[in-house]
């Protein structure tokens, strides 16, 4: 039982927190721009590599490099929107999705060009876990989950207490009405990219801390993150939290050797998220929290 918690449930919660941060961004972008942002995974990878820059070049700890990565990724997101997505705003939204597909490849090849195609780590060596009543707790895991909770709480305050956050929700509810009321849509979109960029950087740094960095790390996140966003109800940032946790825990727990062999071979972990997404689309396409569909 303790093995189950230590080696399946806790890693599930950790990866679930990472998926949550990505899925919130995906949901936020969908609710305001009405697009599936396919470059989200690669933006996350870029965030992780920005932090690597802080770690390697400036000698910072990855925790210290997180704010730097957030600022740089937020700036990249806003710039990317200005250069690649904004000019297409008047066209059908699918055009923006095609553009984001291209941006994904540009980001990925830029990472390979600058940092090389190999694997990187923030810190080498093994960290000994703290053992507490049989639970193996690693410092980095506590940090990841704790920081994810703090970020989600900050986002909640931002969306409910600040003028920009309220404007964001207004644009998401009804863009035309929001514009008529004098909300500057473009400013709201910029703020949204800033928030999404920060969340991406956090997800990337956490994933880098948890495992390692490689230029393809973002692409493999894309499917579980979208599954999480759809599970929670697309366009519902709070639903994305539940979705992210469900997908993360399901992926890890699915490899639990309940009857001797792993229930699902770890090589097919990626199929779990997809299967859950497909079942959700069959059963209730609006997701658990009645998000937008169609």
């Amino acid at each position, binding site marked *: 039982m303790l093995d189950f918690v230590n080696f399946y449930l806790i890693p599930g919660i950790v990866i679930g927190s990472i998926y949550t941060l990505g899925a919130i961004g995906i949901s936020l972008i969908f609710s305001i721009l009405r697009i599936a942002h396919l470059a989200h995974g690669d933006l996350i990878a870029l965030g992780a590599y920005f932090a690597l820059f802080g770690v390697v070049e400036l000698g910072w700890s990855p925790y210290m490099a997180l704010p730097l990565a957030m600022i740089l990724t937020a700036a990249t997101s806003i710039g990317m929107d200005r250069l690649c997505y904004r000019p297409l705003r008047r066209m059908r939204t*699918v055009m923006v999705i095609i553009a984001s597909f*291209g941006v994904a*490849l*540009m980001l990925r*090849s830029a990472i*390979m060009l600058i940092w090389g195609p190999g694997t990187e780590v923030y810190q080498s060596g093994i960290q000994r876990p703290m053992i507490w009543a049989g639970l193996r707790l690693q410092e980095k895991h506590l940090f990841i989950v704790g920081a994810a909770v703090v970020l989600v709480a900050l986002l909640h305050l931002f969306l409910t207490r600040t003028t920009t956050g309220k404007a964001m929700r207004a644009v998401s509810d009804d863009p035309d009405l929001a514009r008529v009321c004098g909300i500057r849509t473009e400013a709201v979109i910029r703020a949204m990219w800033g928030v999404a960029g920060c969340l991406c950087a956090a997800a990337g740094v956490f994933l880098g801390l948890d495992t390692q960095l490689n230029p393809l790390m973002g692409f493999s996140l894309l499917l579980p993150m979208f599954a999480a966003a759809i599970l929670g109800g697309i366009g519902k940032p709070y639903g994305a939290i539940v979705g992210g946790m469900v997908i993360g825990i399901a992926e890890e727990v699915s490899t639990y050797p309940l009857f001797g062999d792993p229930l699902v071979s770890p090589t097919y972990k990626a*199929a779990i998220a997809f299967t859950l997404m*497909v079942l959700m689309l069959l059963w209730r396409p609006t997701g658990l929290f009645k998000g937008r569909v169609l």
Partner: protein
Amino acid sequence: MESATGLLLYATAVLTLGGIYAILALGLNIQWGFTGLFNLGIAGFFAVGAYSSAILTARPSPEHFGGFGLPMPLGLLAAALLAGLLAWPIGRLTLRLKADYLAIATIGIAEILRLVLKNEQGLTNGAVGISHIPRPFESLPRPYDELAFLGMVAGIVLVLYWALERARRAPWGRIMRAIRDNEASAEAAGKNAMAFKLEAFVFGSMIMGLGGGVYAHYVKFISPEAFEPLMSTFIVWVMLVAGGSGNNRGAIAGALAIWAIWSMTEILTSQLSADWTTRAAYLRVFLIGLFLQIILQRAPHGMFREVPPPPPEPSSPRQPESRSADT
């Protein structure tokens, strides 16, 4: 004389692969260009076609499933059918939702397929792949075998072009355009949009499967690496968007032009030192991404703008059809 033959062989190889890409681009044109279906899993249908034909036509081998030694046309037929069979349930499930869902679902299917190809040793020989796939015309002397294969690819492209042009002008193509441009009004006109979208999705995927089959017989050796999303999904999208989506001639021209550019830049970068050659490979990917952004913003119609099919001849002279402007 030697170098002339070499040049001829090189040009033949570029044209043959360009022709295979043209088959994929034509398949995507049915889905995206005609009907507006957002398929980002071309790699998956391409791979299913390639592996189906390879398993059916290769000689028996202990390394992977089958090796049935069947003739190539049967392999190609199975390639198209199996790709269509894969497309049907995906389409059933996601076509009633917004385009975004089809995009995500097709990315997912292609990724899972790649995992299957990589891990199911018994079926596909895993990462090692399937070799000894028969290639037609191999008994001919050197330049002629390649030329004959090119002729076969060109023949397939031309037949597909002819068929798709017929389809585009036929009522079927008009309905597809109607669904793409305004699904609600197509439904109001009594068309079952879901059924037509499913037809377009399955038909387009079958063509991609056929392309995969032809590819397997051309390269004679396939492994999961050949079906990375970059070289088999993304580049086909760039080809169609650059050529002009909705225009079959554009799909073919885009495929040949982008493939020619891609192959020729490879010659340029292979002149560099080893370290720079790998870096230049990433730079090429970056530039092709940038190229797509520029086309989308500056020339969204591509090289060949979509031409609406001419209105049909009125079936009887007493019905002067009044029609609203075609969009």
